[in-house]
């Protein structure tokens, strides 16, 4: 990576230059630098609405980049050690879907862990590919799915030699990494491509002593949530491709679903954040790791909680752990993660990323300060003091192995009827059910609805998890195949 090159931010620079020219707009957007919408200017500020402009020659066009956007993409590729990079404005969902659509066609098999984000399965609904799930090992105490063990991937490849790709979470929401290097080697030996969902892994490219990034491990594609640990605006993201991937074809795939009016707020935020990461990422993430580590130690001293870290590593299903993630097991104080999540927000004015059945996840980033960490730890200590309960009657979040009966696409478009959730036992689901966040499906289209799954959904609802995915807003009924 050339540091001097990385000091540039072509989109940002072009916007600054454009602003200086004071061009009279007779094009979209119709708010015309905010003049037509004073309330919006009041909310967002003049500077912000002033760069909300349309694609034009001096600012390039995301659908067919030839000048400043292309340069920004090249700099991004260089910064991440990729062959090509695509700036994305439809969230990492669009990056994940574009990489799947780039390698899978209707009927193709793709090997993936079941704890994928819903965007991955949605891509299968769109293209008609068939998932081959690798059973992830589960830590039964923490109730979370771990990484994919290499031997299980090997078995899946052996049983499905016609599969075209393997998808890997690097890392999972909770910070758990699979042995992606060995998985890449195995997949490539068998003529399969490797797609990495790095929605939670932007920092792996810049921080020191962190798990290996997908590009460094030789994966073919990686979807990067710049807006998570990278610091760009929400909804901005990056798709990376490695050597041997036909970038022009990937661009065509992206353009199938991408807006033709890409926001320059998002694009410039990607440009500036990439520059920041390239120049200062290493020190920033060293600080993030240090803060997370400090918080982990302090939380573990409270008693009852378990803030886990590298101690979980077992060299197979937990090949590595991303120490910037602060996940805390809460059942030890007799409260479900989601209950602690609600208490933190309602009683202590602290918003964390999510709470599931057994854990909470606090997102630590380059924007945090030590005094905020003290508040979080202090609040957790106070919750343990005031709300501690007996552990009895709490469900631990067991992994429920899915029974895939039909492809997601077939099930999604099949004839369906609505049933009360209790009556849906032994039917095939026509829709998703998930807690959001994290957005990992409990049930996906085409999967068998078992007693166990029904109980889990009802329990999660009772504990206050925000459930999504079903046609019925209250998740009291499920759409099942007739």
């Amino acid at each position: 990576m050339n540091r001097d090159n990385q000091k540039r931010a072509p989109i940002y620079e072009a916007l600054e230059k454009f602003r200086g020219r004071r061009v009279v707009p007779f094009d979209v957007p119709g708010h015309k630098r905010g003049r037509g919408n004073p309330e919006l200017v009041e909310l967002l500020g003049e500077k912000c609405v002033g760069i909300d402009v349309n694609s034009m020659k001096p600012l390039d066009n995301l659908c067919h980049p030839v000048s400043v956007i292309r340069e920004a993409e090249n700099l991004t590729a260089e910064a991440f050690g990729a062959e090509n990079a695509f700036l994305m404005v439809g969230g990492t969902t669009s990056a994940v879907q574009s990489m799947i659509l780039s390698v899978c066609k209707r009927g193709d098999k793709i090997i993936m862990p079941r704890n994928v984000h819903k965007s991955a399965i949605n891509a299968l609904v769109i293209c008609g590919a068939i998932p081959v799930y690798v059973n992830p090992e589960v830590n039964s105490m923490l109730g979370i799915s771990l990484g994919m063990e290499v031997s299980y991937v090997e078995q899946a490849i052996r049983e499905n030699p016609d599969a075209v790709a393997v998808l890997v979470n690097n890392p999972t929401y909770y910070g758990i990494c699979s042995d992606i290097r060995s998985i890449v080697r195995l997949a490539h030996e068998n003529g399969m491509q490797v797609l990495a969902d790095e929605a939670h892994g932007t920092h792996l490219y810049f921080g020191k002593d962190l798990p290996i990034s997908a590009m460094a491990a030789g994966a073919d594609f990686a979807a990067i949530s710049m807006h998570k640990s990278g610091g760009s605006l929400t909804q901005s993201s990056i798709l990376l491709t490695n050597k041997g991937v036909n970038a022009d074809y990937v661009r065509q795939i992206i353009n199938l679903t991408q807006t033709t009016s890409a926001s320059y707020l998002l694009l410039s935020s990607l440009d500036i954040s990439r520059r920041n990461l390239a120049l200062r990422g290493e020190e920033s993430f060293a600080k993030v790791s240090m803060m997370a580590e400090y918080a982990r130690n302090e939380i573990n001293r409270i008693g009852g909680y378990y803030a886990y870290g590298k101690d979980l590593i077992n060299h197979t299903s937990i090949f590595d752990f991303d120490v910037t993630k602060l996940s805390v097991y809460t059942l030890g104080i007799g409260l479900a993660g989601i209950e602690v999540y609600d208490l933190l927000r309602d009683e202590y004015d602290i918003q964390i990323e999510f709470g599931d059945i057994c854990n909470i996840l606090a997102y630590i980033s380059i924007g945090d300060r030590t005094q905020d960490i003290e508040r979080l730890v202090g609040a957790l200590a106070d919750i343990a003091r005031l709300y501690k309960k007996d552990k009895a009657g709490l469900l631990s979040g067991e992994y429920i192995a899915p029974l895939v009966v039909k492809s997601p696409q077939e099930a999604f478009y099949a004839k369906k009827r609505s049933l009360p959730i209790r009556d849906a036992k032994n039917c095939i689901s026509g829709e998703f059910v998930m807690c959001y966040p994290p957005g990992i499906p409990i049930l996906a289209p085409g999967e068998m609805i078992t007693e166990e799954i029904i109980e889990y959904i009802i329990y999660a609802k009772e504990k206050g998890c925000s459930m999504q995915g079903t046609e019925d807003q209250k998740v009291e009924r499920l759409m099942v195949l007739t």
Partner: protein
Amino acid sequence: MEMWFEEFHTPNVKLSMRIEKQLFSGNSDCQRIDVMESVEFGKFLALDGEILFSEKDEFIYDEMVTHVPMAVHPKVQNVLIIGGGDGGVAKELTQYECIEKIDVVEPDEMLVEVCKEHFPELTEGLSDKRVNVYYQDGLRFLRNKTEEYDLIINDATDPFGHTEGLFTKEFYGSCYQALCGDGIMVYQHGSPFYSGDQSECVKMHRKAYRSFPVSRVYQAHIPTCSSGYWLFGFASKKYHPVDDFKPREWKKLKIKTRYYTTNLHRGAFMLPKYVEEMLESEENK
């Protein structure tokens, strides 16, 4: 040449003082620190542009947070001052012979150094042999303390700056835990006058009121504070600030004061109607 220091009390009201000269300006890890010499208020110290205390009126504040609880609690031995980097509160406390230990927790070491240089008459309070200074975050210091203190004085004034953590439910909870069974906590309650400050004031009352069995509010006139009118909180596990007040015992100690008197003690808890209503509206929720 004219030099004026200005501090906004609301977006539309400011306090302005004529300045003789600036004595210090620097940025610590926590905040910007300025020391200035003013014509009317003498030397004063400002944190992030807001006056923390001035030579002319700091005695009011220091006396009100110490003598009020000291005249209620019959036997204070261990005291914790959170954010007492200037030493003013510690200095008042050292007048009491019954006190055995005074822990001062101040996250900003530079603040202490600056005060030592420009306000030595205050920081001499820190050199008493009963005083221990800890350069640490207050929340962190408190987290593992259980029933150790008879009195905790929260000297932090700004609920929005780097001391934000000292105005939270978790802080009051930690104080409760760190106090002995008959312990008292005194804290800054802000100014109730301007509408912008009111909501913070009510929020503070809510947190203390829900954390402690006894929670009362008292007042003082401090010219450099917002609107010149300031409230303090008195929260306790046992003692009521007026019902358990012991004026005769306190008078026997012959403590020297310039603001506090035993008459004023009672009066300080008699609040204006609008303040009473504001606090009651929260209590009745």
